[in-house]
């Protein structure tokens, strides 16, 4: 099995020294102010713990996400990677009995601090779910623009935004002639790209994707992966995936999560290239080489 990550290495020349290892860079600049734009860190998780009732699901995860990069969260089921993802836009708190500790800094500001308007956070940190979930009562066009209505945003030219978002999600050519039909008639993969377009319409800074391809066939998966590659120059993407080839294909950085029966932990993070070729931790190696999980 040959995995060739970092396909677009050296592509983002404007961010000069593309960091090799996220943890190294984080250590190097530990004394600097968190969230400094010069560093390009858009979203930082600091010592995240999560609980469901009494169950400690996630322990002490700290991770930085660089602007314009794709970070994949991998690990076996139940390792807390989806839980971690959902703490990043405060969707975690919808589960009854859910609790968390730690800080999530978006542009240097803690999204959990009192007085923060959570709806504004979710506008900046969008989300695409495992199962495509377009609104069935709305047409394709209405679905894409649903976020504007939900968040009561005003936009100059809706038609331009509609076309732009569908274009970016790689769906425009397939649906441009039937924008006013209902989204339910689309295939699963098209529906998922519609959901991506919908998430893009509110212009998020970060896009969280929770196993976006696990319900899709290989062809649709490929289209979504192409979409992710196109988007990564303008949006920070964090993707949870069970598919390691997918992680290798689309991500710049990979974080490996594991639970040894207790709370899930982040075992290792690094450039995707490193994680898949020279992991530092034996457990990571076992997982990425398919010895367990």
């Amino acid at each position, binding site marked *: 099995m040959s995995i060739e990550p970092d396909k677009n290495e050296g592509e983002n020349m404007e961010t000069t020294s593309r960091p090799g290892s996220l943890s190294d860079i984080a250590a190097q600049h530990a004394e600097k102010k968190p969230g400094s734009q010069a560093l390009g860190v858009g979203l930082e998780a600091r010592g995240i713990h999560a609980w469901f009732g009494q169950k400690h699901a996630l322990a002490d995860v700290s991770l930085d996400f660089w602007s314009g990069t794709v970070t994949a969260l991998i690990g076996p089921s139940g390792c807390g990677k989806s839980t971690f993802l959902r703490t990043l*836009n405060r*969707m975690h708190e*919808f589960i*009854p009995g859910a609790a968390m500790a730690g800080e999530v800094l978006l542009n240097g500001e803690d999204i959990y601090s009192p007085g923060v308007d959570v*709806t*504004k956070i*979710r*506008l900046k940190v*969008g*989300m695409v*779910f495992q*199962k495509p*979930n*377009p*609104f*069935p*009562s*709305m047409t394709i066009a209405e679905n894409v623009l*649903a*976020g504007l*209505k*939900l*968040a*009561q945003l005003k936009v100059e030219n809706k038609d331009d935004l509609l076309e732009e978002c569908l274009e970016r999600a790689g769906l425009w050519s397939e649906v441009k002639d039937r924008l006013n039909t*209902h989204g339910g008639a689309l295939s699963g993969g098209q529906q998922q790209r519609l*959901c991506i377009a*919908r*998430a893009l319409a*509110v212009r998020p800074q970060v896009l969280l994707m929770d196993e976006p391809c696990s319900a899709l066939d290989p062809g649709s998966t490929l289209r979504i992966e192409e979409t992710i590659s196109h988007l990564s120059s303008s949006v920070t993407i964090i993707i949870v995936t069970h598919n390691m080839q997918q992680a290798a294909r689309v991500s710049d950085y990979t974080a490996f999560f594991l639970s040894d029966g207790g709370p899930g932990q982040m075992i290792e993070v690094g450039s995707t290239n490193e994680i898949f070729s020279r992991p530092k931790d034996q457990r990571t190696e076992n997982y990425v080489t398919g010895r367990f999980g």
Partner: protein
Amino acid sequence: MSSAQVTKSPALPEKRVITTRPRFSDRVFRAIVTSGGLSSLLILGLILAFLLYNGFDTFRTQGIHFLTSSNWQAVVSDAGKVDVVNSHFGIAAMLIGTLILSVIAVVVGVPISVGAAIFLTFYAPQSIKKIMVTAIDLMAAFPSVLFGLWGFFVLEGSAEYWAKLLNKYLGWIPLFKLDGPYVNRSPFIAGLVLAIMIIPIVTSISREIFSQTPLDRIQAAYALGGTRFAMLRAVAFPYARSGIVGGVMLGLGRAMGETVAVYTVLNIVYQVNWHILFSAGGNVASMILLKFGEASPYEIKALMAAGLVLFVLTLIVNSLANLIVSRTGKSGR
């Protein structure tokens, strides 16, 4: 390898009849549940036949006047014989009363019920939710005569202010017009009592349907930066709309058929009354109750005919409900 070659049949084969032979126990159980299902249909059919058989005479003698006139006179001669020529039966006033009372009930009761359902599903903390659901279920099981008594003794006094307010500011609308002083026992009060009576059923049906709103759509709405209200508008309402309409129609059915509460609260007067604050009115069901005790066999036939009209009216409302549910059902699902 060559033996595994696919050979094309020259013609399409004949379709096979797929059958299965159920076990004995399965057949017995099937018979039991089928008879259960059919018996309700049978009972309904028997009631309809009974009403038709008894009411037919009245329809024949009164004709369309039974629906269009408001004259109810059962003339009995001195010899105790029924004077067929001079007896007149018409239920127009009561039909209009039924309509007005149930519309008041729906207009007042449905917003309260849907609001309560939304609160219980999306806002209420678990502890409050449990208590309220129990209370609302209890309300559904409450005898209607108690609602009537409460309406008579409590609501009439306290709603007088609202009635006068309505008359003062909306009196230019014929519906709220009042010639002469306000007297209690108006259709307005009876409609309010009915509104309270339909709250439990409309609330529990709406709550049930709201609680089935798919979680992934709710999450999608929140993840797009929607507030709870925005989520309700974009996701929960489109999903629940058809179910709520069904609940409203069931409530309407209950309001149209309600007897004792209306009988207790309202001054039943044979007069077409469109003014809901004016102390006169009634509905078909309460009229049947009022007349039944002292009616001659001939008059009872007329009451049966009235019952048949009520039956058909309820049937129409339910069919309309089904039609609306199937029309609006797809879009939000």
